[in-house]
């Protein structure tokens, strides 16, 4: 009899809180979006399931000695997982379009305005007394505008570990929602004529250029902005392994087994921050709101810079590819391509959009370095 009561008291039905029920619903929604809607499935499925496990009452999974908590401590608090993912991103990234048309780096720069505008917004909400974010927290929130998961997780781990869960979730969610967030903004800021602009075929890029570029990148960071070196360095290392052609077995493993293994555990560990008590707090709402703003502003400033470049440059530039400057690789580039096709069925912008898209990765890593340098001192 006593044991029966013990079962009942130990059961979820008895222990579960309303907050946990809500979170279970939210996680099932994330899983639905990932599986049925195919929004960023690699991360929404892993984060969503990690969130499910983290809201099971009365058992240590996302806490204490639970596996997800251990993975979080080992992989995210140390910064190891985001940096390894960044190495994998480098090994998967083809900088060819960027090298063929380096000016697209300006689009990747402009899109980072979303980061700093959001930082300002977070501080504004604090000044208004609506929220209470420190400068470091505001900086970490701003990085959501980088539309780059590993960068956001890395920066949050350095500047605002307490907000890491909400920031990571916001970053990945909005990257998943890019196909919904960006098109209206892009159409609002461009004329039909601009969207119709066709761009000239990209030149072929030699293997030597591909090999030298990551070295150039890491040396430039070393000389100018060391605080961005961990992120940019791992990105460049992965890309060098990809392009140098003499370590294909390492590159192949980095692009497959290694990045897949780390993605699984990164997702579960991020999910461990979706427990009700950590996630269902006012600041999460602020972060989700500000993150959305960050994406919108980043998209807008990318498009506007695209319009400017189009005016200034000899060759035509379709402003839509500016929206890809927020990164969210390769989703944002595909969105630019799709919106372009809507305007002009013969207009394939994908490869042209890949330039600003990868430039955006570099851009947000640079912005991350600046944030860390200015606020962690």
């Amino acid at each position: 009899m006593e044991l029966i009561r013990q079962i009942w008291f130990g059961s979820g039905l008895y222990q579960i809180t309303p907050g946990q029920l809500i979170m279970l619903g939210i996680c099932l929604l994330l899983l639905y979006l990932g599986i049925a809607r195919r929004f960023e499935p690699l991360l929404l499925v892993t984060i969503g399931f990690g969130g499910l496990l983290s809201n099971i009452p009365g058992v240590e999974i996302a806490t204490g000695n639970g596996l997800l908590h251990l993975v979080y401590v080992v992989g995210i608090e140390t910064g190891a997982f985001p940096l390894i993912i960044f190495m994998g991103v480098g090994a998967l990234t083809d900088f060819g379009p960027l090298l063929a048309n380096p000016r697209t780096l300006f689009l990747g720069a402009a899109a980072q305005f979303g980061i700093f505008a959001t930082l300002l917004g977070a501080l504004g909400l604090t000044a208004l007394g609506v929220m209470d974010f420190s400068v470091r927290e505001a900086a970490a929130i701003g990085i959501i505008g980088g539309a780059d998961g590993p960068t956001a997780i890395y920066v949050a781990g350095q500047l605002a570990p307490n907000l890491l869960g909400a920031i990571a979730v916001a970053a990945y969610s909005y990257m998943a929602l890019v196909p919904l967030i960006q098109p209206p903004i892009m159409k609002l800021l461009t004329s039909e004529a601009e969207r119709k602009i066709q761009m000239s075929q990209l030149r072929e890029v030699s293997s030597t250029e591909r090999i030298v570029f990551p070295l150039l990148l890491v040396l430039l960071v070393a000389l100018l902005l060391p605080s961005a070196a961990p992120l940019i360095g791992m990105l460049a290392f992965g890309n060098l392994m990809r392009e140098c052609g003499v370590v294909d077995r390492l590159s192949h493993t980095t692009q497959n087994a290694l990045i897949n293994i780390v993605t699984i555990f990164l997702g579960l560990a991020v999910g461990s921050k979706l427990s009700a008590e950590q996630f269902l707090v006012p600041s999460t709402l602020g972060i989700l709101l500000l993150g959305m703003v960050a994406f919108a502003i980043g998209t807008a400033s990318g498009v506007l810079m695209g319009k400017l470049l189009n005016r200034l440059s000899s060759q035509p530039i379709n402003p839509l590819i500016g929206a890809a400057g927020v990164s969210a690789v390769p989703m944002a580039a595909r969105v630019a391509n799709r919106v372009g096709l809507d305007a002009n069925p013969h207009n394939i912008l994908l490869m042209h959009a890949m330039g600003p898209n990868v430039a955006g990765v570099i851009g947000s890593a640079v912005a991350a370095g600046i944030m860390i340098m200015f606020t962690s001192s």
Partner: protein
Amino acid sequence: MRIIERLQIEADIVQGDLINQGLTLMLVGMGTVFVFLTLLVGATTLMSHLVLRFRPADEAVDAADDDVAAITAAVVAHRRRH
């Protein structure tokens, strides 16, 4: 009264600080991003010119067919060992 006033003033100052900090961070931050990426554009363009001048023979490569490459690599590895 005076205490409340003073608190009020201090609050204003703090708020002013935050906004100012945010503004400077934004200006200097975007500035640095643009300076850095401008230098990167320059360095990359220069690099490409040098490469294309001194290694014109260098065959152009696109990284498309990864798996094929992997297989080729395996073959090479095989040959290498025998």
